[in-house]
């Protein structure tokens, strides 16, 4: 049934009716020109230059020295790199799944009529209205051994003397992920809620008349309707998570050891603290390949849902 909707949405005038030199085509490219120029200058050109730089040894001061593919060869046999890569993937994908589930749960709770609904929605949006840097500091406090309410609660309840949330290599990444989920679940909550409002209510009534339970309706009506939204949102959110820097840099700096280190922070440290801009670029290129292949496979699988029109 969702294909029907997709068909209508993706309906397009057959190709022979529009040509790039048609009147609309000329205006189309003219209007796009400023965007393309801007992106070419600040995004595509630096990106290509970064790829180029990855074939050099460069400390940021002297002359770049050509090393060919040496950096790449080095990276693949490098245990530390693989640890960081694994952390990055866990960080991005596990947290997005949890965010989507928490967001869905709250959307279900809020998707009914009750007094105080808009107040509840607004309050739940609050984490989203706090800048990353404040969240990072806020959650450092949450996890603080002496002043943090989490450990305070554990002590009051007599459960433990307090956990080393972000200061132990075992919990650090996981603890930061909680903060990341906390900040981003409202995003899923809002979009799911908007999606649920768009579902025609007679569908539910018909299902009810046919004797399906609420769980059945949820599985066969709500979820299929939310699927396209969920797919776009998880794609974007996982890409944003892969790129995210602030929480990890400020809360642990990637430590202890490299236990909570992710690629963006690692690449930054390599390039600007250790002066290994070439090697750092090579790692970043590997990261680009990971993100591109993930994103493109995703788009290919769910082309209709992302509405690539």
């Amino acid at each position, binding site marked *: 049934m969702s294909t029907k909707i997709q068909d209508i949405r993706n309906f397009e005038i057959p190709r022979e009716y529009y040509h790039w030199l048609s009147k609309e085509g000329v205006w189309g490219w003219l209007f796009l020109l400023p965007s393309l120029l801007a992106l070419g200058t600040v995004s595509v050109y630096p990106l290509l230059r970064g790829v180029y730089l990855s074939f050099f040894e460069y400390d940021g001061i002297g002359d770049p020295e050509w090393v060919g593919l040496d950096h790449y060869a080095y990276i693949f046999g490098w245990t530390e790199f693989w640890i960081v890569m694994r952390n990055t993937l866990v960080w991005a994908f596990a947290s997005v799944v949890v965010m989507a589930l928490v967001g869905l749960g709250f959307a279900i709770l809020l998707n009914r009529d009750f007094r105080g609904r808009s107040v509840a929605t607004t309050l739940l949006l609050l984490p989203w209205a706090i800048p990353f840097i404040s969240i990072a*500091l806020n959650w450092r406090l949450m996890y603080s051994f002496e002043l943090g309410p989490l450990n305070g609660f554990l002590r009051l309840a007599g459960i433990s003397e307090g956990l080393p949330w972000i200061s132990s290599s075992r919990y650090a990444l996981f603890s930061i992920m909680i903060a990341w989920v906390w900040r981003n679940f409202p995003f899923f909550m809002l979009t799911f809620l908007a999606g649920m409002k768009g579902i025609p209510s007679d569908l539910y009534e018909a299902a009810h008349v046919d004797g399906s339970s609420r769980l059945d309706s949820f599985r066969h009506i709500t979820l299929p309707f939310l699927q396209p939204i969920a797919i776009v949102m998880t794609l974007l959110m996982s890409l944003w998570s892969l*790129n995210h820097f602030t929480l990890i840099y400020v809360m642990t700096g990637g430590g202890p050891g490299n236990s909570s280190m992710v690629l963006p922070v690692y690449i930054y440290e390599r390039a600007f603290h250790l002066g290994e801009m070439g090697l750092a670029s090579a790692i970043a290129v590997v990261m*680009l390949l990971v993100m591109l292949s993930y994103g493109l496979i995703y788009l290919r699988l769910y082309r209709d849902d992302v509405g690539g029109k």
Partner: protein
Amino acid sequence: MATDTQTTPNEESNTSVLSDRQRERAKRVGFHGLLWSLIAIVLSPVLWMFVVSVNQIGFEAFIGDPVGWAANADLSGYYEVWTESDFPYWFRNSLIVSVGATVLSIIVCTFGAYSIGRLRFRGRKAMATFLLVTQMFPLILIAIPLFIVFRDLGLVNTLTGLMIAYVAFTLPFAIWMLRGFYENLPESLEEAAMIDGSTRFGAVLRVILPLSAPAIATTAIFTWVLAWNEFVFALVLINDSERQTLPPGMSEWVGQFALNWDMLMAGAISATIPLLVVFFLLQSYIVKGLAEGAVKS
């Protein structure tokens, strides 16, 4: 909670109208209890941020004696942030850079989004995909060469440079978001104006832009938030503390004032205020804009 337990025995002899009503009521109480306790859990970090910002205190001490906490509360943390640190500079720089980058992106993206969202021409699909692909670029891969280029151009350590750099990630996002809105406008809008003799450009300026003002405003807010939050580019492209923006500036505090939690939290709250103001003034817009962008694109 009390009603909850009282209704349970009644449910067994569930025949009278009264017990049905009581059951409804118990359900409602249960629902509200669940919802509001979840909300309390979600909000607890923010509440704790506030508690500590006015009086640095441990959790047990606070629970044991909240009155004592209130009696000793003061604004010294805020005073320290706003008068004894570089925070005011960072705050000002963040405002300049984020507003500048937003204005820049919005001017450029309005036409780009219109083109991709509304005009039919060959290559449009490819351009839409290209925009999505730019979201797959690691920002740090862009930041390293951008640093080298900006250094050679003398743009390192300038707010102008930072503003330009921010276009790299604000522009694709803004186009993507606004595009969905243009797709949903009725087809005949500009045509009427064009029949009256105006060019496509004139029609966009006089008919489309005024109509899309709310959508543009929503897009601008989201773009501005992205820029307000940005960390890596500012860290890489700015060296002077007085030219720094809030995120990297405040991250320095972690090493310097690790135990001044009242100051750290006062700073965290101060950096939040502009966002909060915007969010709560324009909340209905934002919710609507996001819903439209998400559902339609």
